[in-house]
């Protein structure tokens, strides 16, 4: 034990004069009164003496209590029934009455203590915690990596409602704050395109089927007719369609006239 004994178990304790009064203290930096150079006052020794005294007192008390409770004299006295004494004045009855009163007091005191603890514990804890550098304490004394390793992050993530979180995010505002032009300028699109195997992509596309669908959908003949603007082809098309319509009309008329109940198989429905 040297003179720096009080600070030996708390690491680098600073002198009281250097401490910021606003940062009151933390648990490991509780200031202690500097001891005079001539004082032979060992704190550990005082604590040991106090603990020894306390232990001896508690041990003695327990011994006495045990001796009293286990004493056959006391037990016999508790169970002794005095002759010619009314039952309510018997020692047993008196002790039972005292026990009931004691139990009632104990309950009442217990409730009071609980009430006091409920009222004062938050206040005291707040006062104490406000004077502690909890972050520093945790940083120095807790192996956060070990703690994190013991956490089942997958289970935590699986319980998180990401949709709700994303729904609360204003993505438009977030995106608008991003300089996409600058980001795109930093991307070498040529290099990316150079790594693409375009041939494989094209091989996976059924271009013929796609073109056929497009041609079927856009009425290519109409576009060709419009682009060429051929009056002759338009007239021929009109004459052909007129002929088809006239054929159908005559077929229907002949069929009605001859009372045919069957429909001509070659006459399709009107488009």
């Amino acid at each position, binding site marked *: 034990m040297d003179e720096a004994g009080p600070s030996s178990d708390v690491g680098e304790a600073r002198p009281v004069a250097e401490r910021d009064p606003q940062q009151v203290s933390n648990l490991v930096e509780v200031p202690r009164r500097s001891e005079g150079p001539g004082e032979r006052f060992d704190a550990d020794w005082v604590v040991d003496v106090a603990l020894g005294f306390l232990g001896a007192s508690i041990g003695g008390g327990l011994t006495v209590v045990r001796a009293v409770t286990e004493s056959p004299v006391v037990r016999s006295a508790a169970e002794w029934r005095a002759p010619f004494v009314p039952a309510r004045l018997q020692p047993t009855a008196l002790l039972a009455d005292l026990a009931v009163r004691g139990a009632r007091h104990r309950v009442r005191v217990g409730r009071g203590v609980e009430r006091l603890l409920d009222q004062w514990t938050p206040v005291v804890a707040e006062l104490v915690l406000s004077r502690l550098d909890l972050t520093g304490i945790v940083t120095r004394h807790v192996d956060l990596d070990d703690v994190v390793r013991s956490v089942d992050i997958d289970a935590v993530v699986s319980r998180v409602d990401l949709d709700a979180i994303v729904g609360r995010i204003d993505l438009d505002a977030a995106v608008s704050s991003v300089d996409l032009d600058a980001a795109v300028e930093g991307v070498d699109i040529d290099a990316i395109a150079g790594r693409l195997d375009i041939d494989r992509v094209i091989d996976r596309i059924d271009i013929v089927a796609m073109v056929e669908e497009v041609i079927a959908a856009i009425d290519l003949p109409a576009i060709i007719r419009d682009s060429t603007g051929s009056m002759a082809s338009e007239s021929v098309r009109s004459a052909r369609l007129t002929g*088809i319509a006239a054929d159908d009309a005559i077929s229907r008329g002949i069929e009605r006239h001859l009372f045919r109940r069957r429909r001509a198989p070659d006459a399709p429905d009107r488009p």
Partner: protein
Amino acid sequence: MNEVELSLVPVEARPYQGRSAGIVTRLVANTIDALLVGAALVGTYLGVVAFRFVVAPRDFTWQEPSWVWFVLGFFGMTVVYLTAAWWISGRTVGDHVMGIRVVTGKRTRLRIGRAFVRAVLCAVFPIGLLWCVVSRDRRAFHDVLLRTSVVYDWLPRPARSLPGTTLPQP
């Protein structure tokens, strides 16, 4: 690629492709063909006259053609024209204008023999065309005899023009 070729047909006419043509369309086509043959006949006559004038202008006299030769010439030219047209492409100029084609019962192009017989029948008995009005398959007299059909086919060239191939079934 037949679907792509068929798509060249206007949308409103696609349902009719491959179906038998009716009397109106065929009459119009035949009329066009008759006018063409007549024009060719007149042109041939004028050409012969011009040739005679060039060869012997002094002895040239305008001769009215006899009706017998005119009818025979019209008949022969019609037979030759129809045979060649149906054998080569399955359609005459009138058929091409009206978008129809002559095919066999198996929807193939006619061979030259059947094309010739059909041409002769058409030239000799053109009124047989009217039978297609009452025929349930819209077949004319010569179609019934030779088992041929006239179908709508708007494509400029037959999609399956080679012998042994078939056109769309009605």
